[in-house]
C-alpha cells in the first residue's frame, strides 16, 4: 500500500513538474518573440534616425505581433493559475468541459502535441464530484498517449456524452491509429483506479472511451489536514 502511495505521489509530482516546465517554456517563447520584435523596432528607429524611410506597415505589424503575444502570455498565465490551484482542494465539484479545455491547452505546449478539438461544447454537461488534480492528470496522460501516434500534424477529438446513468462518457478520437494494445498503461490505470474511472471495452485503433463517475466514492471524505 505504501509503495503504491509513494508511486502515485512521485508520478503526480512528476506530472506537476512537467506541466510547469512546459508552461515556462511557452512563456519564454512568448518573451523571446516580444524581445526580438521590440529589438526590430529599435533597429528601425536607428535606421530612421539615419534618414532611411520608415515603413508604417512594418511598425503596425510589429505592434500587432507584440499585442498578440501579450494576450497569449495572459492566456498561458491564466491556465497556469488554474492548474496550480487544482491542488488546493482534494475533492470538489468539477466542470468537466473546463478541465478538458485546460488540459488541451496545457498539453498543447508539448512539442509532439496534436491539434485537439473539443466537440459538443454547448451541451449541458453536469459537474462531477472528484479530485480535480487527479482528473487533470488522467486526461493529460491519455492525451499524451494519443499524441504519440497522431503527432503534431494529427488531430484528437474529445467528445462527452451523458447517456450513461453511472457517469459521463469521455471519448478520444484520433486521426491516426493508436496502439490500443498498450492502453491503459500502468500510469493511466493507477490514476483511473483511484478516481473510479472505468475503461470501456469498445476501444478501436481510432477511439478510446472512459467512463468518469458522477461521484468518485473512493476519494469522498478525503481532505487535506489543515492547520
Amino acid at each position, binding site marked *: 500500500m505504501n509503495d503504491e502511495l509513494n508511486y502515485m505521489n512521485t508520478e503526480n509530482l512528476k506530472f506537476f513538474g512537467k506541466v510547469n516546465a512546459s508552461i515556462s*517554456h511557452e512563456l519564454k*517563447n512568448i518573451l*523571446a*518573440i516580444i*524581445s*526580438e520584435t521590440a529589438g*526590430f523596432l529599435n533597429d528601425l528607429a536607428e535606421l530612421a534616425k539615419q534618414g532611411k524611410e520608415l515603413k508604417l506597415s512594418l511598425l503596425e505589424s510589429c505592434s500587432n505581433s507584440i499585442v498578440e*503575444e501579450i494576450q497569449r502570455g495572459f492566456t498561458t498565465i491564466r491556465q497556469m493559475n488554474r492548474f496550480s490551484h487544482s491542488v488546493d482542494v482534494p475533492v470538489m465539484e468539477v466542470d468537466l468541459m473546463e478541465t478538458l479545455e485546460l488540459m488541451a491547452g496545457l498539453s498543447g505546449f508539448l*512539442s509532439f502535441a496534436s491539434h485537439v478539438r473539443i466537440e459538443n461544447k454547448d451541451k449541458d454537461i453536469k459537474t462531477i464530484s472528484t479530485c480535480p488534480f487527479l482528473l487533470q492528470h488522467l486526461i493529460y496522460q491519455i492525451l499524451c498517449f494519443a499524441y504519440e501516434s497522431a*503527432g503534431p500534424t494529427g488531430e484528437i477529438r474529445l467528445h462527452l456524452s451523458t447517456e450513461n446513468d453511472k457517469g459521463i462518457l469521455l471519448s478520444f478520437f484520433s486521426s491516426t491509429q493508436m496502439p490500443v494494445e498498450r492502453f491503459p498503461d500502468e500510469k493511466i490505470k493507477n490514476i483511473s483506479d483511484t478516481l473510479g474511472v472505468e475503461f470501456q471495452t469498445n476501444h478501436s485503433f481510432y477511439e478510446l472511451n472512459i467512463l468518469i463517475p458522477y461521484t468518485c466514492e473512493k476519494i469522498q471524505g478525503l481532505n487535506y489536514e489543515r492547520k
Partner: protein
Amino acid sequence: MSENEKINLLLVDDEVKFLQAITYRLKLKFFEITSATNGKEAIDAAGKGRFDVAVIDLQMPGIDGVQVLESLKKSHEYLEVIILTGHATIETALACVKLGAFTVLEKSCNIDILVQAIKDASETGLIKKSNRNEIRMEKIQALPLDQPSMGKLKKLARWIKPKNKAL
C-alpha cells in the same frame, strides 16, 4: 559587414513569429537568410542551398533540433551550426557541442552576441575548408612527376572524393 561579404544563413524555428522577427533583424545586418519552420524543411533546404551557418531551435515538433544538427553535420562538412534554445542546460549544451554544434546560445540572447557567433562560425567553416584545400594541394604537389597520368588521376580521385560516396 558590407553587402559584399554576405553570409548565407539557414534559420530554423517552429515559432513563426520569432523566426520572422529574427529574420528581419539579421537581414538588416546584411545576412542572406533562408528560413525553415521545422526540421524536415531545414534538412531539405540545406540539401538544396549552400549555407555557411545554420541557427537551429532545439525544441521543435517532429524532427527536433538535435536530429537536424546530426543530419546537417553528417551531410554538410563545412556548415557550422549554432543551437538556440529556450532552456539551455549544461548537459544539453555539452551534448550539442559533442555532436558538432559550433555553440549553444540562449533564446533570446542579445542580437550582437548572435551576430558575432554567426560571424565566428562562418569564419571557422572557411578555415576548415581552406585547411582541407591546403592538404589536398600539398598532396597534389607531392605527386611523383614520373608516374603515368592515369595513376596520378586515380590518386587524386581518392583524396578528393566526398565521404561515403563511390566514384
